[in-house]
């Protein structure tokens, strides 16, 4: 692919008042039919189209989107990237994604600002520390970088962290993944859109699916607000709205859609150069390149599609952040928002064929989808192209909910003691 974004192009175009820039991607009008249609132009959907085109040679693809591309959870997350998951299935999938992240900027010729500043997962109880030890050892054996740090070492690396023993839940230690970090979320969608578009993929915004044409257990097309689009292969990547699409196909999903909130502070001088996550006090934070603290809140208990959560969740999160970083008490929240996350019973995604031939689903990423974006698209493209799962997503099939083969990532956090 021609690398037309560079210092030189900036210089050359700058001399001509930046009038020579081409559209980053082509907005298409729907053709009557496609080889593959991807529903949902978020990061995962666009990545799927990109890898279908790049790795599987399928170019006759439409990515249709009911709103604007990258406007769902891609635009609303706290941008954390890591692969330090407990179970083999999850760890290997996220590690696959992390490896792709490491080459993504160059691959897409679009700087996604993947900043490997490390991710800390703090432990506040003895059980937290057991879980951390278990997860880090598992990561090491899976070839994933991870280490266990004690409270003194955590304090040395994050001097502003409150490691006082008199804290309500003192920091006892942490796991640390040096290769983890953050990325510029919007850029991921735009970068994939641009790269997919260059392969000839049609990106069609403001096109909402209203029905599916299914007969004899096969899909043959979609009804949309921009007309009928025929295709015998349809991949749905619609995060919070997956249940709505599944219902059109007569498929039940083990998904509940909940608001997940986040907020940013005002822009400040650098004060936090890594990512800090704490399950026990329910908060996580990093500082963007622009200087805003980016803070993730807890998930709302009740389901909702409104992208609005309850303020008491934000209040608890602010309290948690102050507990972790007392110096942030006088810092101000600038903006808060919510996304709709599609949660599954085992906190793991579904990347699966369905009982409808030609219809595939990629959903259920819950709170963890952003970090998986390239890996998710990559294995989903394989699943669609070959009509069989990639070895890395075999375990993430829908039928695990009847066989009982759950990959219980939140179970790993300890259910009682």
């Amino acid at each position, binding site marked *: 692919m021609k690398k037309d*974004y560079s210092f030189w192009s*900036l210089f050359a175009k*700058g001399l001509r*008042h*930046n009038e020579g820039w081409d*559209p980053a991607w082509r907005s298409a009008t729907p053709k009557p039919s496609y080889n593959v249609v991807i529903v949902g132009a978020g990061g995962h959907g666009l990545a799927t189209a990109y890898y279908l085109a790049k790795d599987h040679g399928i170019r006759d693809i439409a990515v249709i989107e009911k709103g*604007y591309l990258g*406007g769902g959870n891609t*635009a609303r997350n706290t941008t954390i990237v890591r692969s330090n998951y407990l179970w*083999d299935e999850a760890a290997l999938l996220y590690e696959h994604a992390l490896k792709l992240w490491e080459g993504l*900027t*160059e691959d897409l*010729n679009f*700087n996604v*600002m993947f900043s490997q500043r490390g991710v800390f997962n703090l432990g506040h*109880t*003895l*059980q937290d520390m*057991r879980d951390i*030890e*278990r*997860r*880090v*050892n*598992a990561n*090491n*054996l899976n070839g994933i970088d991870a280490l266990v740090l004690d409270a003194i070492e955590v304090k040395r690396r994050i001097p502003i962290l409150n490691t006082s023993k008199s*804290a*309500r*839940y003192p920091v006892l230690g942490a796991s640390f993944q040096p290769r983890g970090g953050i990325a510029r979320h919007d850029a991921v969608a*735009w970068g994939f859109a641009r790269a997919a578009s260059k392969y000839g993929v049609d990106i069609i*915004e403001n096109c909402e699916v209203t029905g599916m044409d299914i007969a004899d257990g096969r899909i043959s097309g979609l009804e949309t607000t921009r007309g009928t689009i025929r295709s015998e292969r349809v991949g749905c990547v619609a995060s919070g709205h997956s249940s709505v699409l599944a219902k059109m196909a007569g498929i039940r999903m083990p998904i509940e859609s909940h608001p997940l909130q986040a907020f940013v502070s*005002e*822009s*400040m*001088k*650098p004060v936090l150069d890594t990512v800090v996550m704490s399950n026990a006090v329910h908060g996580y934070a990093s500082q963007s*390149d622009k*200087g805003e603290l980016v803070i993730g809140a807890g998930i709302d208990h009740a389901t909702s599609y409104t992208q609005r959560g309850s*303020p008491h969740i934000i*209040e608890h999160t*602010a309290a*948690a952040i*102050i*507990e972790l970083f*007392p*110096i942030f*008490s*006088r*810092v*101000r*929240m600038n903006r*808060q928002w919510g996304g709709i996350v599609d949660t599954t019973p085992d906190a793991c995604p579904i990347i699966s064929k369905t009982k409808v031939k030609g219809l595939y689903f990629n959903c259920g990423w819950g709170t963890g989808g952003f970090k998986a974006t390239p890996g998710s698209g990559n294995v989903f493209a394989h699943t669609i192209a070959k009509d069989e799962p990639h070895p890395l997503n075999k375990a993430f099939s829908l039928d695990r909910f009847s*066989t*009982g*083969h*759950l990959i219980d990532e*939140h179970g790993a956090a300890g*259910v009682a*003691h």
Partner: protein
Amino acid sequence: MTDFRIRHPNARVDFRRPLSFSFDGQVYPGYAGDTLASALLGNGVRMLGRSFKYGRPRGIVGAGPEEPNALVQIEAGPLTIPNLKATQVELYEGLIARRTSGWPTLAFDLKSFCGPLSRFMPAGFYYKTFQNQKLWPYFETIIRQAAGYGSAPEEADPETYDHRHRHVQVVIVGGGACGLFAALDLGRSGLNVVLLDEQNEMGGWLLSSPHTSIGGESAEAWLRAILAELQSLPNVAVLTRTSAFALHDMNLLLAVEQLQDHRPLAERSESKPRQRLHRIRADRIILATGAIERPLVFGNNDLPGVLTASALTTYLNRYGVAVGKRVVLQTSNDHVYQGACDLARMGCSVVLADTRSRPNTVWEQRAHSAGVDVRPGYGIAAAHGGRTTHAARLAKLDGEQNTVLAPGPLIECDVVGSSGGLSPTVHLYCHDGGRPLWDESRLAFVAPEMGRAEAGIFCTGAVTGTFGLQAGLEQAQRVTDAVLASLQKSATRKARNLETDEPDSIPARRIFRVPDGKPEGHGKKAFVDFQNDVTAADIHLAVRENYRSIEHIKRYTALGFGTDQGKLSNVNGFAIAADAMGKSIPEVGTTTYRPAYSPVTFGTLAGAHEGDTFEPRRYTAMHAAHVKRDAVFENVGQWLRPQYFLRPGEDRDAAVRRECLAARRTVGIMDASTLGKIDIQGKDVREFLNRIYANAWTQLAPGKCRYGLMLDENGMVMDDGVTACISDRHFLMTTTTGGAARVLTWLENWHQTEWPDLDVYMTSVTDHWATAAVVGPKSREVLAKVCSDIDFAPSAFKFMDWREGTVADVPARVFRISFSGELAFEINVDASYGPHVWEALLEAGAEFGIMPYGTDAMHVLRAEKGFIIVGQDTDGSMTPFDLDMAWAVAMKKPFSFIGKRSLARSDTSAPNRKQLVGLLTEDPTVVLAEGAQIIEQSDLEPPVPMLGHVTSSYFSPELNRSIAMAVVRDGIQRRSEEGRKLGRDAVFAYADGKTHKVKVVSPVFVDPEGARQNA
């Protein structure tokens, strides 16, 4: 230093109360009633910062929350506050402010070298470059250093915050003319009303326009009368310095009240919070949030000394500051005329370029008579200057198209004001799902007058696009009537004279970007968003690159992402984007309005939930006794449990060893009060327990206890504990400490939603009972000393029996159960007797050397017996069979108990699952890490297949060697005789880079026959 003050009597500053303050180390005078911005402008300070991307000099633009540039750091040390807007900082004696941009100095800023290179740094340039992942961290460090405004404090916050919950009939947001008027009528009707405003005094725009007349009265007198009456109404709360920042579902309005920041440091109250969050749940909400004037976009419009026209008016009338003496104004509308007249009357020379070729004739006449030089049909093509403004280049505009007909004169000046019209403050209206409507006649996104009346949300005044005062007041009356009617009340008001001296207004010109005769991007930079250095050309570039959704434009250019939340920039940005795409503004739409309207301190959001009161601590009844004995505590959920008791000269290992040996050799005592206790009664309790637990309860006789295993419906172990039969229709269930609340809800859920026909009642009694476990061979003797009405003979009081009796003169339930494998009794007494009984037991045990022990010793003792801890040895993926606990599962019970069916699924019933086992290291001194992974071979080339992990691991003082529990794939077979023969019991444990050879064995290390607990 030049004085820019005009000390007129209508100003809201007190010229008799001078103050001094400093900015960037320089001391300046100001007055009580000033903001930091008005005081700085009064001293002629123009440049306050440098811009985000290009390092361009920047000064004050607005006079309120819309200010994009003048971000300052207030005070130092623990009280410092980053990023306050100088326009919102009330001046006090001794205030210290610093710039937040400009490095190394404000005058010499390194980023300003980017200015000349700016054409190579258009919107999104960083997406197009720095593409080497290895070099990116270096680029990123530089970018990060260059970004950001103020700095976070370096110390914890010494001030406090609190929350107040209010439930009112009506809350009115905005104390301008309309809000006050509505508050008055609603207050008179006896409604419970809260009126709030973010400023230090009520009045809104009237404070900037004191000689406006309402019904023949001056605005000032009108205001005074209304405020006096509101103060006299006990049912009306008037909150100043209170900013409503979010509107949530079901009319929950969040507002933050400033209580301290405006006071000199020495006068701040230590007993009062710094800020208070008001959570106001209101039946009706009236948004009278007004409007904010947006500037026009033109060349060099970001120079210090270029302000909004309304800000110039406010500084003059409210603060007695003429920002400049030679003023050039430009406008698209009528709103600037009053200010222009005021400036001229106060002695400024004023040129007013009205982009309309035919201005409002009434205003034009008034302006002429005030001495304003009105130039119809002109706009400002560009401002000239550097660190301040020197001149404005006018351009003659086409009457229809927004194009230049002819160049205009260069007018020397020291300040420029511009008005592109008013943007209604619709933010709150939109937070919970309201959509603003584009009103082409007013060139504004407006909230409808009846808001969302069905939800109880109403709007009045400028927020609805009603920009005239008289029209606004009339509308406020209408809205008030509607609110009253919706609450089944009617207004009790006399006819009032609402006439004002405003002329009828004429339409504004539809102009946002003032043309300079050049294609976009070729002329002087024209800024849309000052804080993020977004220019009109950037928006055109975004559109050219197909970032055409307004959200894409916003995200690509960073338009509206600053701490001003786009209050000045959004509409201009949308309009410029619309023009670039050849669309109408409604077709382009708006971005979503998100809280907070103005930034809110984290501390305020947290309220009292910080530090020691971050989350409650739960103490057992015996807590003080443990503190007295030097217990080290462990957090278990919200509980604090003694982890071990330190004696002089001991470390943790020595203490745990001593405690374990006491329990095994003589007697120990543990506080077990934190275990969850649920009292269950009713005639169907047995059936209920049969359904809830995996094991059977039909046969359990009164006086007996049984260990129960609770599964979730997925078949996985979720809790365990001993349940005692008190009588046929009365049972006492114990749960894990952490699971108590969840289990109670679980039981209630099944009972109420699935089996309401079962006659059972349940309640938590965890806090009602204090529990002391007396453990060890001497425990019987200890008990016998303090209890005479229970027969402790082994034949009379068997293992898993319980008895009612009197212990240390207190009624007690004594359970002969054991979590250590020793002879043991758990004594339950009314919690208030807990400390008494605890001390009595210690005293009785003294002769045997009784020792209190904590959770560490408890863990060792139970692991020596292979007893699980749910949550430590299980993780939500373990079935009873995985735990080798088939004995606790009654598969033949008639009702299909919770979780049973799941056990039969293909995967759940498959062989080769991970199963609970014991592990012994080859080297008995090695204590494995809890969380070590089990692997078949010692080869560590990833990926290494993992068989399971170590769940519990200790040094056993009893065995004088290490022991561990683990879950291991096919573990039960591995530890069987057959497994040993095949050598499958030999595996490795990996942790932290090291492997240890281990043998898979039974998890019961001590007294496998149970002789001790049955003794």
